[in-house]
């Protein structure tokens, strides 16, 4: 999986956030990004068809 996430792509993302990180730092981080995104793929097991996101609902209680 790691080959699908290039250091250059990550560096570009971080530059968008104003963070100019050295390539070796990004290289070290890349496996953590891949692991995290792979972990979240588990959410695809859920049937979320026609489900509206919940993130506003707690705020609507006021």
């Amino acid at each position: 999986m790691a080959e699908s996430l290039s250091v250059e792509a990550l560096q570009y993302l971080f530059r968008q956030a104003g963070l100019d990180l050295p390539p070796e730092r990004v290289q070290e981080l890349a496996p953590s990004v891949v692991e995290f995104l792979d972990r979240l793929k588990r959410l695809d097991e859920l049937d979320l068809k026609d489900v509206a996101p919940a993130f506003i609902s707690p705020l609507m209680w006021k």
Partner: protein
Amino acid sequence: MARVDTVALTVAEAARLVRSRKLSPVELVEASLRRVEALDRRLRAFITVLGDQAMAEARKAEAEIGAGNYKGPLHGIPISLKDLFYTRGVLTTAGTGAFDDFVPNYDATVTAKLKEAGAIVIGKNNLHELAVGGTGENPFFGNGQNPWKEGYVPGGSSSGSAIAVATGMGLASMGSDTGGSIRIPASFSGVVGHKPTYGLVSRYGVFALSWTLDHVGPLTKTVEDAAIVLTAVAGYDARDSGSAQVRRRNYVRSLRGDVKGLRLGIPLDPFFEVLDKEVRQAVSQAVRVMRGMGCTTRRVSLPTAAYSQEIGLAISWAETASIYESELRARFHRFSRAVQDQILVGLSMPSSVYVKAQMARAVAQREFHRALEQVDLIVMPTTAVPAFPIGSKQVQLGGESVEARFLPARLTRPSNQTGYPALSVPCGFTREGLPVGLQIIGRPFEDGLVLRLGHAYQQATEWHKRNQQL
């Protein structure tokens, strides 16, 4: 007069003594500070101790009470605050080197309310760095130690709050909870922790981690004490966008009702069955006690809770990255490597994954809503395992080796995602002498009912009266 013993003393008991002038706030604060002096080098509960300031406040409270101006049950009571609550003129670090020089120029709403109620802040509590973990390990201010077994984690992120309350370094503390950070240390360290309904207590002036998951609430020795503190801090605050406009209540009065006939839901999906054996035994026994109190039990199904880790990580890491993006730019090397990595990973996450997690959260909320139509409250363990050794990378659970960093929040995350009130109450000890916590979850804004069952359980049991040998 004999020296005051703050280890066994509750807020409610101390308040009765202070009100009747049998105990002075000066003696109480002195006794709490003596405990800090004796224990904190080992246990690491505090980042800042406000000795002189607290003594001055104690003398002021003593004079006020002596003059007949008693403010209520927190007047003259020594408390502490997790070091992410703003305190005007006092260092507030959020447990990270990135803010180790930050001195706010105003009080958090909760800080101000506690001071108005007459509480005396004796210090600021240690925490997992930036509140982003459940163990209480901290590379800048020292690893919090479990008060029942040194070398074991106290639970986090409100680690210092739980240690302080458990050991009499103050009688109550305020913590924050994004995935379990009040209830986990309460469970691991043998105290009461209450995560109120989302919106019930203001988060204004509290370092944020995740706007849609963050809650703040009390850690205390008893549920009665939690009700006293909640009564003081609850209420609408226009400066917190998530604050709810609900009627103010006296939560101590909520404790008085009957629990006979309450219907308790026990989640029995496979996810909830994966438990440490001794945790299962202690919680099963607690449920038997509740049946003996006249409660009835039935199974409820919450299948999406099995995805609560992924939901919680996606939401909280994305929101944390958004909140701290500019701070990471400004102070990159002052955060630990672990926090740098978490924020960077959060910045790398596609927005579609964040929205997907919020959709899954909606499904989980619906399941809790349906379950709480069939029952009045849900009961389950607070944590699947008791405290484990500091530095553990993996912990055994259900015959498998699981990541220690995510394990403590396994059973607490769902209530952050629903926003429903959840309480952790001590319900036993393992053979090694480590506490076990029982979690009680209720409908939104029925915090009073949650506290009532927890209080009734404490009246029927003695677990909260056990003290450590330190």
